[in-house]
């Protein structure tokens, strides 16, 4: 047992996970119509739904690099959101063990009136980092983003490229055990994007588990050891890359 100490073990286990999105039209969002329907017809407004995931089984162990591949609307992003804990499943088991960071969108949660430093803390907190962690990483993040003195200005003054660079820099320093990504992140000018790719690669190497959704099969073949093919919410094939 002694050599297990210090070795980070993370795991993601999905068994029979199904998920459907309820469709809410304009009228079903009104309490007046809801109550009138209840009184008049004695039943609630019929809830239509779209099946997004259909009995997904996945067992992801430490060291796995999982690529999710499939056309639009095949459930890739939904599956990522289930694993990150945003959508809770009503049936099936979804257990995620380990510190998770999901880079689903690198600019959400940014406050455009706040300064760069404010946003480092805001997004850091949203990604689940502690105050001490963010404080210690702050200088590294500023240096990596290459924003210099701009960091003290409100980010609405930034160009869109600079905003993306800041968002990216905060995200890649979060040091997760389980990294969840929706598409490969490419940001900034040529010089920055080389740096960003290197950093992203080293982050992926440091993480225990990577789960990435992409349309780019070549990219997935390069970085993943398992490619999960999704179609209409079901797993059609799990391809092993050696």
């Amino acid at each position, binding site marked *: 047992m002694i050599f297990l100490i210090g070795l980070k073990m993370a795991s993601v286990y999905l068994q029979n996970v199904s998920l459907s*999105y*309820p469709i*809410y039209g304009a009228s079903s*969002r*009104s*309490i*007046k119509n*809801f109550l009138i329907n209840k009184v008049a017809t004695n039943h609630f407004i019929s809830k239509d739904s779209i099946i997004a995931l259909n009995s997904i089984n996945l067992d992801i162990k430490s060291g796995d690099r999982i690529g999710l591949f499939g056309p639009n609307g095949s459930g890739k992003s939904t599956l990522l*959101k289930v694993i*990150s*804990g*945003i*959508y*809770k499943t*009503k049936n099936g088991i*979804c*257990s*995620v*063990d*380990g*510190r*998770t960071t*999901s880079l*689903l*969108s690198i600019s*959400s*949660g940014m*406050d455009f*009136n*706040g300064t760069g430093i*404010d946003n480092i*803390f*805001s997004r850091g*907190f*949203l*990604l*689940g980092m*502690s*105050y001490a962690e963010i404080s210690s990483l702050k200088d590294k993040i500023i240096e990596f983003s290459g924003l210099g003195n701009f960091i003290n200005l*409100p980010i609405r003054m930034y160009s869109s490229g600079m905003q993306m660079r800041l968002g990216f820099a905060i995200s890649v320093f979060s040091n997760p055990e389980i990294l969840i990504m929706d598409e490969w992140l490419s940001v900034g000018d040529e010089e920055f994007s080389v740096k960003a790719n290197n950093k992203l690669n080293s982050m992926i190497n440091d993480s225990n588990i990577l789960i990435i959704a992409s349309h780019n099969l070549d990219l997935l073949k390069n970085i993943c050891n398992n490619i999960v093919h999704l179609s209409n919410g079901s797993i059609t094939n799990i391809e092993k890359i050696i």
Partner: protein
Amino acid sequence: MNNIFYKKFIPRFFLASLWFGFCDIKNRYIRSFLGPLWITIATSIMLLAMGPIYSQIFGSILSDYYPFLCVGYVGWLFISQSISELSNSLVNSEDLIKQFPLPMHFYYLRALIRNNIVLLHNFIIILIVLIYTGDYKNFNPVYFAIALILINIFLYYIGSILSIICLRFRDVPQLVACILQILFFITPILWSPANILTHRYILYLNPMYYVIEVFRIGIGVGNIEYFPFLVLGIFIFILFFIFRIVYYFSNNDIPYWA
């Protein structure tokens, strides 16, 4: 919630909501030098003009009426603003709900902390009036702390119940604003409960009566009674269970409603 990580680190989100609450206030200061103090100034001008007129309508002495009105009105501003902002807290953070698996308490706490800071701004009015009339001698920090904590818990639960309903049914926020408007007139803010001779049951049936009374007693305006504290405690007890029930039935659906 299946993710163990987020279960372990709930205190972290308390700090996060504190941070975001302060950021919200800071944003109000960014474009205007005075920020939330504008509301304080507007309120104080209104109270200055209202005091002499309304004290005559209700036949009270100005020096008695002023502290009563100011404390009541500032308290009401805090209560009504908190309820309306808390009930909109989830609707306004749809973007975050869909991107980060944060506990819903984060959004409620953020709104509540923001409103407590605004209350701190408006406290200047109360402070000036109390010093001017000499009523500050009745101020008891223990009563004040108990009152503020009770009111905050009350607002937290009522706001979080409403926020979930507001997220599901998008016409409820207007309803809440409408009810708050009615409550302003039937709660003893401008007038004293002693003025009501018949139909007193309307007074006693209004939950806000007890909340505003607790606030006044906490500041030290009015007689010290324990009954409003007791009623507020019972309200909190009931609201806690209603919140648990609403949360139990809706917790899984909140991201879909956003």
